[in-house]
């Protein structure tokens, strides 16, 4: 800054355009700033953006079919699936050649796994044939159609060939369709059968429960933040430690503690039965349902709500409230018309933090949510670490990311992102 203020007038007197020299100085400053943040930028790029991009690409990646079955894909180009006839002998010959090569390289099971997502049962046709085809001299041993069907009668099923043809592109919409409970049918995308629809339900449930959790956090957190900001420093510090203490405790410990408190033979139910409020035979069901998730997650995310509210409330000048009251406002009017609007940026910041954290939570819902209180992130975790369907997991993750960004945009339109402060 000092550079500019010194050189600016001199240059102007010189007749050199002030604008240019100013721009040069600013450019240098920008370069320096960029260099300073370069390590962080690089770090984020390598450890966050690239892996996320790689993961998201998996939601449409379908190269495996062409990589493993190149000849078959080519041979099926001219085949019309609508004819409901098995493809020509050439397609069977191509498949036999592809399959033998794949079986030796052990890649046939990978393509089998991919196609099995779309047509259950295909995996075993590939696996069983792969085992037998190794002994078969496929170069000059026809007729391929009979021999393949003899190897495994699955190859005589037109549906199987249709699946190969439908999913032969290098990119697929299959995972995304599955992630919104749809599938590619004969006439394009269609809804899955009723008893297989789950992801839309889960997405809506995740959003609804995250909103409930966010509002519970506002309701519980606002008075605490107000107390923190208005008590004398010594008492406020003690209270702040009480807010932060659970923050420093392991997430698993806190969640397990809720389990002990909430279960039917747990502390809360035992106490209620002992007082006589609840009958021993009808203990309250507080866990393994939505309620359990809402209670435990509200508690776990509460500090993320209180801290931004507290730091915003600290900056609110108490004289405004006094001024309002001196002009005849009641306590409530003074609070609602003067204090509350000034604390809104803190509520906004806290709500965004809590909501976005809640949408992606999966450990707590998995432990206390039972079946009705789990989130879509539990299904993503399931597909990534248990079922191995990374493509579907990636598609669900991409949808979740898009929904969060959309909500962020809506929030910006309604409340305004400038209206968010962390202190």
């Amino acid at each position, binding site marked *: 800054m000092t550079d500019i203020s010194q050189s600016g007038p001199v240059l102007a007197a010189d007749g050199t355009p002030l604008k240019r020299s100013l721009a040069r100085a600013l450019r240098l400053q920008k370069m320096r700033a960029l260099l300073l943040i370069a390590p962080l930028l690089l770090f984020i790029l390598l450890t966050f953006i690239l892996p996320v991009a790689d993961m998201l690409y998996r939601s449409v990646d379908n190269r495996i079919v062409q990589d493993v079955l190149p000849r078959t894909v080519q041979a099926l180009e001219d085949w019309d699936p609508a004819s409901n006839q098995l493809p020509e002998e050439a397609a069977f010959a191509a498949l036999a050649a592809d399959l033998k090569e794949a079986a030796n390289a052990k890649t046939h099971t990978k393509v089998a796994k991919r196609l099995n997502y779309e047509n259950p049962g295909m995996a*075993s046709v590939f696996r069983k044939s792969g085992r037998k085809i190794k002994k078969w001299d496929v170069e000059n041993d026809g007729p391929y159609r009979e021999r393949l069907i003899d190897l495994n009668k699955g190859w005589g099923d037109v549906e199987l060939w249709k699946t190969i043809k439908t999913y032969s592109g290098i990119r697929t919409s299959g995972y995304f369709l599955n992630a919104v409970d749809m599938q590619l049918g004969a006439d394009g995308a269609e809804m899955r059968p009723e*008893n297989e629809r789950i992801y839309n339900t889960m997405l809506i449930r995740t959003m609804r429960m995250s909103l409930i959790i966010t509002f519970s956090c506002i309701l519980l957190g606002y008075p605490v933040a107000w107390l923190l900001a208005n008590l004398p420093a010594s008492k406020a510090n003690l209270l702040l430690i009480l807010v932060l203490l659970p923050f420093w405790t392991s997430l698993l410990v806190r969640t397990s503690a809720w389990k002990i408190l909430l279960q039917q033979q747990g502390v809360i139910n035992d106490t209620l039965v002992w007082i006589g409020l609840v009958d021993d035979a009808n203990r309250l069901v507080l866990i393994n349902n939505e309620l359990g998730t809402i209670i435990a997650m509200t508690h776990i995310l509460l500090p993320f709500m209180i801290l931004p509210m507290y730091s915003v409330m600290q900056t609110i000048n108490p004289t405004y409230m006094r001024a309002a009251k001196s002009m005849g406002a009641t306590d409530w009017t003074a609070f609602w018309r003067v204090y509350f609007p000034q604390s809104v940026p803190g509520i906004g910041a806290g709500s965004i933090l809590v909501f976005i954290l809640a949408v992606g939570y999966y450990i707590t819902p998995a432990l206390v949510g039972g079946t009705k209180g789990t989130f879509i992130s539990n299904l993503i975790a399931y597909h990534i670490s248990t079922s191995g369907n990374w493509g579907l997991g990636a598609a669900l993750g991409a949808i979740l990311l898009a929904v969060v960004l959309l909500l962020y945009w809506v929030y910006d339109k309604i409340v305004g992102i400038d209206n968010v402060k962390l202190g």
Partner: protein
Amino acid sequence: MKLSKLSALAVTTALCAPSAFAEEMANELTLVSWGGAYENSQHKAYVEPYLAANPDVKITWSQSAAEAVAKIRAMNEAGNVTWDLVDVVASDSMRLCDEGLAEELDHDGILAAAPDGTSATDDFGDLIVSDCFVPQIVYSTTFGYRTDLIDQPDTVCAIFDTEKYPGKRSLQKRPIDNMEWALYCDGVAKDDIYDVLGTDEGVAQALAKLDTIKDDVVWWTAGAETPQLLADGEVVMGSTFNGRLFSAIAEQGQPIGMLWDMQSFDLDGWIIPAGLPADRRARVLDFLKFATDTQRLADQAKYISYGPARASSAPLVGKHADLGIDMAPHMPTDPANASNVHVYDYEWWADNRDDLDAKFQAWLAK
């Protein structure tokens, strides 16, 4: 990813260079298992004696077996496999083997023969369910019940009888076993279960049967949950791995009884991740031969009530190391316990898991 693969290759070559001439063995070994009492039994029976004989070797445990398939796949893609020997269940070993992520093994070439000279292949018999798999133990998923809260049930169908056995029950949060038990208790003959389950009507029938107890079920994902829920009195009966129930009953003295009817057998064993450097692979093979011989497998049964996978180990199973009780009657394979068992069809589930999972999860969420 290309880059990391190349650099891994460079490191591998550098590591292999000295061992190209002599069979040099790495001195570090990373074993992956399930933690808890089970890993402890492996440590006591295999690792401690091995370390006593090979004091230079350093063995590290990792408790990631539950995510083994996903992690090995990720390691393989990154070209950096950090695990040497991984304990997985039978179905996972088939998946890893199918995908080329586990090494195919010549069982007779690398494993010890039985003391009487029976080859390893014959000694393990049918339990070698895939070419990559070296079986260790037979365990079962079966039911425990609170002896003080309900009458003694004598059939697995007690889980569907909420009138005679009121209270909550805990079941594993997956379709495997539960669907089969549901069909069995809905009158389907044991041999027809998988034929029925292969049809849409069969799936609907199984889910309808599970529907009758849906409000009474607590779903678990970790094996330790059912013993805890039983101990707390949260559930009156529940399925879990038989070894967990054994510890709750025999070691902790909880008022829990075993219901062995229609127990579902499964296997646990080792796989070697594909693509290990030569020196690490040599160490793994040396350890594997030792850890899966007849005596070691029999020793493991001193610490946990899982049946040894070798036929030749069975007669050597003795008493519990601390409690001094006979272990044979607590094995899932003991004739008294195995009068009516459910043989879980790995192959069938490998093909149909994705499909049934979708239906099961959708049913759960309703």
